[in-house]
C-alpha cells in the first residue's frame, strides 16, 4: 500500500489550494476527486443542462444516477432526490469543483462578518457565533488567494471597505450598460458602488489570456481559460511538482483509523468500482459542506461511535448557504449589451448597519441571463405564461430587464443539518446525506429588508416597473454550502480549531466551506480559498 504524507479528499476550491501548497512544500500528496476532469467543449453550451439551470441534467456532475440524497421538507416529508433536482443542494463534482464552472465573484468577507454574535446578539433558537479568528488574521491569505489565483478588481474602491495591504493584480471588469444605469441610480440615492471583483483575467495573467466577454460564464467552463479556478492554478502547480497524484473517479467511503483511534488514511472506490486503501500522515477533507459532513459521519470507529469529530453532536449542523432576494426591473431603454460575464456593479452599503435586522447582503446586477432562464424565472407574475402576449413580452423586454440581487448572510440554526439517511445508499453502498431543517427565521426578515433595497435601487435607476418577491423560510446550501464543521476554540460547540484541525485528532483537517462559522453576505469562495491557504501552510509547518 502506498504511503503518502497527505491525502486530500476533494479537488475543489479548498482541496485544490491545499494540494498546491503542500506539494510545493515538499509533501507527497494524494488528491482524490469523485468527478472527472472537465475540458471545455465537454459541457457544451447546453442551456438546459448546466449548474445554473439543471432542468434535464448537469454539465459538471455528479452523475444523475447512483448519487441520491434525501431531502426533508418543512412538514417532515422525506423524498429521495437526484443531483439535478430541487432540494439536492448540489455543487459541481469535477476537478476544480465549483471553481470550474462558477461565476467567480471574488469577495472578501467584511471584518464585521467574523463577529456577528458580538455585533447583533444571538437570537433565540439560533447558533449564531463569532469566528475564533478575525479578518486581520485572514487578510494576508485573502491577498495570497487574490494574487496566486488571480482577481480583477478596483483596489481603491475595495480599500474603502476592507483594510488591505496590497491592491488587486488585475484591473476591474469593464462597466457595462446595466452598471452605468445602476451607478446613476445609486448616485441619486447617495449610495456608494464598486466594481464586482472577479476571479477572471481582465488581462493576460499566469500564462493564460484575458476574458473574451462571451455570454456563457456562470454555469459553464471558460472557452479560453480566462476564468481562474483551482484546476488551472494550484492543482496545476501541485501536479507540476511531480509530488501530487490526482485520482479522478474516486469515491471516498471512509476515513480509516488504527486500533488506537489515530487517523491512518482513507478507503475509496476507484473508477472501476474496486475498493482501495491509501495511508498518510495527514488527511484533509475538502468535499464541500455536505459531503465532508457525510464522510466524517460515515467514518465511525470503536473510539468514535458517532463519527469523527462528532463527540459533541456538532458535525453536520448549522448548514447554510445564502438567501437570494431578487428584484427585477423593466427599464425604458435596453440595458443589454451582450458583453459577458455581465456582472458589473455592486454596493456593500447594506451588509451591516441596517436598522432592525441582523446583517444583510451585498447587492449587485446579474450575469447575462440565458433566454430559457429568463422565461422560467424572470417574467412578471401577472404575465400570461403562453400565447402572443407572452411571446411579445419576451421579444420586447429581454434586453430591457435588469435583475438586482445578493447573498443574504444567513442566521444559522443547529437544526439545519446533514445526517446520514438510515436506509438510502449510493451506488457504492455508502449511506447518503439526509438534509433537514431550515435556517433561522431571522434570515427571512433580513432578506425582506434587502429585497426592499434592491427594489429601491432599480426604481432610482429608471425602472418603469419592478417585480419579484423575497424568499420564505427554507433550507439553503447549494453552491455556497457552508457551516457543517464550524471552526471554534471550544470542542463542545465546534468541530475544527482555528487552523481547521478536527478537535480530538492531531492529523485530520477540513479545508472547505464546512468550517465557516457564518457565511458572510458575499459569495464565499475567496474566503474558502484564503482559509485553505492558511490551513495548508499550518499543516506544512507542523509535519
Amino acid at each position: 500500500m502506498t504511503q503518502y504524507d497527505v491525502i486530500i479528499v476533494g479537488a475543489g476550491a479548498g482541496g485544490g489550494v491545499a494540494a498546491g501548497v503542500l506539494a510545493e512544500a515538499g509533501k507527497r500528496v494524494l488528491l482524490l476527486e469523485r468527478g472527472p476532469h472537465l475540458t471545455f467543449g465537454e459541457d457544451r453550451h447546453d442551456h438546459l443542462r448546466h449548474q445554473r439551470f439543471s432542468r434535464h441534467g448537469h454539465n459538471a456532475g455528479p452523475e444523475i444516477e447512483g448519487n441520491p440524497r434525501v431531502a426533508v421538507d418543512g412538514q417532515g416529508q422525506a423524498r429521495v432526490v437526484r443531483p439535478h433536482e430541487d432540494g439536492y443542494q448540489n455543487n459541481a463534482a469535477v476537478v476544480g469543483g465549483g471553481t470550474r464552472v462558477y461565476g467567480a465573484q471574488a469577495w472578501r468577507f467584511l471584518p464585521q462578518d467574523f463577529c456577528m454574535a458580538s455585533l447583533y446578539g444571538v437570537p433565540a433558537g439560533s447558533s449564531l457565533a463569532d469566528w475564533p479568528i478575525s479578518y486581520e488574521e485572514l487578510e494576508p491569505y485573502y491577498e495570497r488567494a487574490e494574487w496566486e489565483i488571480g482577481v480583477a478588481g478596483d483596489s481603491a474602491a475595495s480599500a474603502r471597505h476592507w483594510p488591505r495591504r496590497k491592491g488587486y493584480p488585475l484591473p476591474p471588469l469593464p462597466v457595462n450598460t446595466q452598471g452605468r444605469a445602476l451607478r446613476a441610480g445609486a448616485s441619486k440615492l447617495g449610495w456608494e458602488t464598486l466594481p464586482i471583483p472577479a476571479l477572471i483575467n481582465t488581462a493576460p495573467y499566469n500564462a493564460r489570456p484575458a476574458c473574451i466577454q462571451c455570454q456563457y460564464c456562470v454555469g459553464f467552463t471558460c472557452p479560453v481559460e480566462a476564468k481562474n479556478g483551482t484546476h488551472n492554478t494550484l492543482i496545476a502547480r501541485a501536479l507540476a511538482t511531480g509530488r501530487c497524484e490526482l485520482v479522478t473517479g474516486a469515491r471516498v467511503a471512509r476515513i480509516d483509523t488504527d486500533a488506537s483511534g489515530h487517523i491512518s488514511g482513507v478507503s475509496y472506490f476507484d473508477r472501476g468500482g474496486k475498493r482501495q486503501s491509501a495511508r498518510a500522515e495527514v488527511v484533509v477533507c475538502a468535499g464541500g459542506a455536505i459531503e465532508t459532513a457525510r464522510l466524517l459521519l460515515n467514518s465511525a470507529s470503536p473510539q468514535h461511535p458517532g463519527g469523527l469529530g462528532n463527540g459533541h453532536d456538532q458535525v453536520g449542523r448549522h448548514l447554510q448557504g445564502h438567501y437570494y432576494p431578487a428584484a427585477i426591473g423593466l427599464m425604458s431603454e435596453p440595458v443589454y449589451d451582450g458583453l459577458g460575464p455581465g456582472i458589473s456593479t455592486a454596493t456593500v452599503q447594506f451588509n451591516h448597519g441596517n436598522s432592525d435586522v441582523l446583517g444583510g447582503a451585498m447587492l449587485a446586477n446579474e450575469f447575462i441571463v440565458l433566454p430559457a432562464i429568463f422565461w422560467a424565472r424572470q417574467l412578471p407574475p401577472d404575465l400570461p405564461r403562453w400565447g402572443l402576449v407572452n411571446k411579445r413580452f419576451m421579444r420586447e423586454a429581454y434586453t430591457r430587464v435588469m435583475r438586482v440581487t445578493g447573498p443574504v448572510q444567513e442566521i444559522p440554526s443547529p437544526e439545519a443539518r446533514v445526517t446520514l439517511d438510515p436506509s438510502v445508499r449510493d451506488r457504492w453502498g455508502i449511506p447518503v446525506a439526509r438534509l433537514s431543517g431550515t435556517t433561522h427565521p431571522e434570515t427571512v426578515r433580513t432578506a425582506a429588508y434587502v429585497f426592499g433595497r434592491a427594489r429601491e435601487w432599480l426604481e432610482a435607476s429608471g425602472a418603469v416597473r419592478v417585480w419579484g418577491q423575497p424568499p420564505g423560510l427554507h433550507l439553503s446550501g447549494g453552491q455556497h454550502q457552508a457551516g457543517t464543521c464550524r471552526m471554534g476554540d471550544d470542542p463542545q460547540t465546534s468541530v475544527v480549531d482555528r487552523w481547521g484541525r478536527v478537535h480530538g485528532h492531531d492529523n485530520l483537517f477540513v479545508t472547505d466551506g464546512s468550517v465557516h462559522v457564518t457565511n458572510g453576505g458575499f459569495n464565499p469562495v475567496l474566503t474558502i480559498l484564503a482559509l485553505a491557504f492558511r490551513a495548508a501552510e499550518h499543516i506544512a509547518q507542523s509535519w
Partner: protein
Amino acid sequence: MLTPPHWNTLRALMDRLIPPDDFPGAWEAGVGDYLARQFERDLRPQLEMYRLGLEALEAEAQASAGIGFAALDIPAQDAVLRRIETGQVTAPWPVDPAGFFRLVTEHVMEGYYSDPGNGGNRDSIAWRMIGFEARE
C-alpha cells in the same frame, strides 16, 4: 411512442403556446424536433403523461365543439386551453389537466428559447427575436 394523431394535436397545441407572428411559431421553429428528441431521453418517463393528456385534450375539444382540437379556430382553441390551464374541464382527464398544461408549456418554451443544439430554436431564431446574442 406518440402516434400521428397525437402529433397533430401537439403541433396545434404548441402553436397556441408560441403562435406565429412575424417570427415563427413553436412548430416552425423546431420545437417538435426538440420534443421528439427529448421523448427518447429526458422526457421518456413523461411520454405516457403526454399521450394521455393529448388524448384528453382531443376529448375536451370534441366535448365543447364536436370537432378535433387542431380543426378548431384560434379563439376556440385558446378557450379550450384556458379551461385546461385552470382545471375547469368537462371531459374525463386521467392526468391533472392544469399540471399537464403547465408541463407542456415549460417544455415548449425550453425548446423554443434554448440552444439550437437541443433541437429547437432553428437558426437561433428565438434569440434573434429577443436580442440575445449567440456569440460563442
